[in-house]
């Protein structure tokens, strides 16, 4: 170890970062505090502590859950996220292996298309994609998983091909000489080696799909299915006033599972972010 890692006044820095960290989580704490306030008091004085008449207990939560049908949205969001991520992991890892090992003109063309996909903003295909999904009856949570596989394939294929290029082919060759067929080679030899990158891609895609707003909003049959983001946005409605109490409660309910997930999987999330930072 060198002196490079030392700083002058480490205690001072700890205090400084401690204060900044508190400021960093303050917006979330503020939402939690306000979720217990009567709605009229929220806009009037956001920084007061709920007490006396302003304190309403869990009233905002019951009303918020009722108006947004929160648990249904939560379920659909979970289903769409888990379904899409599993589909993406399975299909794109297989596709990436095929691209790297076959490596003919078709594979190269496919790879170039996937790279191209990564720089196209969603607005470019927004209208046509949502109409096409409608025509093909993909406007259900299950159909949406296929849409996510299609639109989100680029990044996953890109990361997986990078990993597979680093795997020596001799392993697969010797398995083949021993008589293993192609699917077996992939699932028993290649997949275990790819495991860390599979976790990373899962995290990256899950973060995107769980929080996505426009794609489910435009594609899903909203009378039947809403995701959490869509449900929260619906609370605002057209030009009417927003029920700030229900809004605060729904925000808290939307944040809690994410924070729990973060605390449990933090190590993998950080790795996922770093895997996504490979240069294009």
């Amino acid at each position, binding site marked *: 170890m060198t002196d490079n890692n030392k700083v002058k006044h480490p205690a001072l820095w700890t205090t400084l970062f401690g204060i900044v960290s508190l400021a960093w989580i303050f917006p979330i704490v503020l939402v939690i505090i306000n979720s217990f306030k009567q709605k009229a008091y929220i806009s009037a004085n956001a920084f007061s502590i709920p007490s006396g008449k302003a304190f309403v207990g869990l009233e905002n939560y019951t009303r918020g859950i009722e108006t947004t049908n929160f648990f249904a949205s939560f379920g659909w969001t979970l289903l769409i996220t888990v379904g899409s991520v599993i589909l993406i992991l399975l299909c794109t890892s297989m596709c990436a292996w095929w691209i790297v090992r076959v490596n003919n003109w078709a594979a190269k063309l496919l790879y170039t298309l996937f790279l191209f996909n990564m720089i196209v903003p969603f607005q*470019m295909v927004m209208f046509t994609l949502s109409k096409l999904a409608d025509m093909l009856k993909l406007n259900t949570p299950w159909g949406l998983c296929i849409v996510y596989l299609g639109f989100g394939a680029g990044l996953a294929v890109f990361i997986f091909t990078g990993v597979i290029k680093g795997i020596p082919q001799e392993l697969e060759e010797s398995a083949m000489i021993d008589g293993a067929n192609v699917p077996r080679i992939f699932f028993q030899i290649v997949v275990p080696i790819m495991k860390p990158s599979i976790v990373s891609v899962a995290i990256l895609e899950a973060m995107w799909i769980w929080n996505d707003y426009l794609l489910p909003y435009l594609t899903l049959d909203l009378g039947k299915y809403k995701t959490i983001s869509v449900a929260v946005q619906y609370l605002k409605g057209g030009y009417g006033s927003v029920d700030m109490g229900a809004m605060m409660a729904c925000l808290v309910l939307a944040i809690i599972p994410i924070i729990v997930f973060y605390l449990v999987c933090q190590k993998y999330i950080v790795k996922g972010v770093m895997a996504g930072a490979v240069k294009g």
Partner: protein
Amino acid sequence: MISMVGKAIRRWWALFALPTFAAFIIGFVVPFIMGVYLSFCEFTTVTDGEWVGLKNYGKALQDKEFLHALGFSTAFTIVTTIVINVVAFAIAYMLTKAIKGSNLFRSVFFMPNLIGGIILGYIWLLLLNGILAHWGKALTYSATYGFWGLVILVCWQQIGYMMIIYIAGMQSLPTDVLEAAQVDGANGTQTMFKIIIPLMMPSITVCSFLTVTNGFKLYDQNLALTNGAPSNMSEGLAMNITRTFYGRMGWEGVGQAKAVLFFILVAVIALLQNKLTTSKEVAA
């Protein structure tokens, strides 16, 4: 040279490559090609396009709100790219040093990234309106408030993400080069600008690429925080395009033309930026 494994799995294309490719055709290739074609058409749905040539592009470029949104997004992207990268770099630099609690601080800074744009927008709407209420104002009072509100929100969200990438880059800096600099008597500023920053260029390329494209693509936060108020003056490009599609009858073609222009803009900027920062990369 085609390997034995390559030959064997080529025949398995229907299982390995086809599912992804089929979904990719539905989810990307066809919508993209249709999108480009329809930008030259007048239409209300994807099947009734009538060729009108460049008319949509003319209308798009004469749309004052579109040009305003372009200016808004450009200014927004420049400000956020600079602030996020400078702050994230500085925080990453300090948090790779021996400071107590640095792991905890990293976790805190990263946390906002996991929360969706819509949710983030409403969280900050509460906080910023709460502050502005002291002066009897609100975020929708003027576009300047909306602009800086969005800047604060996006910085708060993305600084942690870029910090993680910068920390990873700093941890893989070659220690022998840093030691050599120290032995040669380089001071802190010299070490930073002559050694650390040049060696960190790959991370800087990635982070500035991400912040630039995120800046232009911003939609959810924009929708939740200001929804363009007042009178579409705090509206970014992505939002203007979406509103053209779904908010104005008969303007679908113009919306699609704007989307094509938007795509070209994002692609060109991404490529240029990548070239620019890559050219500054050095090997240790």
